[in-house]
């Protein structure tokens, strides 16, 4: 029997989902649905948009207005939806390669524009759908099928990138910290502007196997043991933080929102058409 949350917000007929056993994506998708439930959003007014990749299959399982677009372009499609109909709550789901490689340009400009879209990046540090190639978030020297001798690219910090580009709400959690994903997504949706939540997800099939990270349980344990909340980190020494990564709310600085600004222009021109 599906849970009440699944019954209400998922297209239960389309389950089970296609993700591999041990993948974190299902947990994160559920955490997003929980945020929508807790905010009591009208499902008819929620629009979930994705690009291409493992993460991008999530909207197909969610019972909202859902759009599975082309690789990297989810934010550009979503920008059109939000600007054309600002009444819609627009949520974008992207993967790490999807958002920061092929979709990198759209990502930084959506941040800069501060359009009211809540974006969740399912970061599993690898291209899963195509079989384990290194992505812009694969840690340096880790392996992928296209980095058989180790990846020599420096990895992006997705949250730093979003904050620097102008996103007004930024946070990170993991599939282990699913409740925190829900909290951050809720805050992101409530932020009137562009919000970016990075959700670290384990890919035991490719990233884990290629890099000897153990099975799904080991990878989840890594999330638990190596994540440090940003508030706790403030009281820790650099030595204590060595090898750790931060989770929590990194930025919450509201600024004027794009569609509202555009509406101000429309209002100021009322009655002026010739």
């Amino acid at each position, binding site marked *: 029997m599906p849970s009440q949350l699944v019954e209400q917000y998922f297209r239960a007929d389309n389950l089970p989902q296609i993700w591999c056993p041990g993948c974190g994506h299902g947990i994160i998708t559920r955490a997003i649905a929980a945020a929508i439930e807790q905010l009591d959003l009208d499902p008819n*007014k929620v629009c979930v948009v994705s690009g291409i990749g493992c993460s991008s299959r999530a909207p197909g399982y969610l019972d909202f207005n859902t759009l599975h677009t082309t690789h990297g372009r989810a934010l550009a499609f979503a920008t059109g939806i939000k600007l054309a109909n600002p009444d819609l709550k627009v949520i974008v789901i992207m993967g790490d390669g999807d958002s920061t490689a092929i979709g990198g340009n759209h990502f930084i400009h959506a941040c800069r524009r501060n359009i009211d879209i809540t974006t969740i990046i399912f970061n599993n540090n690898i291209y899963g759908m195509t079989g384990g190639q290194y992505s812009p978030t694969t840690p340096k020297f880790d392996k992928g099928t296209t980095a058989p001798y180790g990846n020599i690219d420096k990895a992006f910090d997705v949250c730093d990138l979003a904050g620097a580009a102008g996103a007004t709400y930024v946070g990170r959690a993991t599939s282990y910290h699913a409740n925190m994903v829900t909290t951050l997504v809720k805050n992101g949706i409530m932020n009137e502007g562009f919000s970016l939540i990075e959700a670290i997800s384990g890919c035991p099939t490719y990233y884990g196997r290629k890099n000897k990270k153990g099975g799904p349980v080991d990878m989840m344990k890594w999330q638990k043991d190596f994540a440090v909340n940003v508030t706790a980190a403030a009281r820790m020494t650099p030595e204590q933080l060595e090898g750790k990564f931060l989770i929590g709310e990194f930025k919450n600085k509201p600024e004027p929102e794009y569609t509202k600004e555009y509406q101000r222009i429309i209002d100021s021109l009322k009655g002026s058409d010739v």
Partner: protein
Amino acid sequence: MSKKVRLMQGNEACVEGAIAAGMMFYSGYPITPSTEIAEISAERLPRIGGKFIQMEDEIAGIAAAIGASLTGVKTMTATSGPGFSLKQENIGYAAIAEIPIVIVDVQRGGPSTGQPTSPAQGDMMQAKWGTHGDHPVIALCPSSVKETFDLTIKSFNLAEKYRMPVLLMMDEVVGHMREKIEIPDSSEIEIINRKKPTCSAEEYLPFKPEANLVPLMADFGTGYRYHVTGLVHDETGFPSNSTQVADDLIRRLMDKVEVNKADIISWEEENTEDADILIFAYGCVARAAKTAIKMLREKGIKVGLFRPITVWPFPEERLIELSKQVKVIIAPEMNLGQMVLEVERLCNKHTKIERLNKVNGEIIYPEEIIAKIQEVL
């Protein structure tokens, strides 16, 4: 209401036509020689409660327009060669996801950066084959400012009627030249809007075709919660791995245009009744052809014009008929022979076909067409 007579540029007429057709959203990226379409849209749309957005690149320009269309508004994006290349993937997306949108290509010299401020007709085959996979194509080609106005409206009407991307293939000459145009009263303009479902949300099958092969389209946000994907999908909209579903979908998408050809296709003929020489020309080249015909007719030479207005689908039947009547077809084009391939494919059994091509960034002059005709006579 009295008719408005205005002196207008082709690019401006495109925006006026789009607004007359009901465009309420434009997203694009600046590129010569189409930029005025963006500039005028930016100025006009917010005044009528519409939206304009300059996106970060050409790909985003079409993507945002497709997204906006899903909320129920009529949307357009405009570009030129390099941008047309970049938009190809999402043109295919709009084709398979059946999302109405108008894409304008004001053609300039290519390939690559080519000749940004010079006219060309080098994208005619790209319009047909540019995006991957089998997909339906409707492409219209205006040759005057007034016709740009009319065909922009027609592009929106066809996009809405058949739920697909429609390409308006302008060229730099048509985009930038100024002509007097009479803007018809809105009551005289036929406007077609996409058909929306009236059934309950539970009964709605977003990709189940009606009798004309086109499915009803619900706006996002109106209670019909459905899924849209660029993957092969069944009538529910969800992806399918069924070979039967794939075959049915791709054939139906193609048939939307094939079966409704009679409704879509249009062309112009001039002096064809007694012609034994036929000029095949479109876009700005058709203007030079008309002048050449006038000059040659004065000398008693029986020349006529066949001008496809829908270049895709191609007006095959009428051209084949005419090819049986004439001794030669002259095909001047501002490329090295693109639409002439269709003419040759259809007509070489019936008549001789002569090419006249120019890719130096200049227009084709009437004298050049006349010289070619005198050469082959």
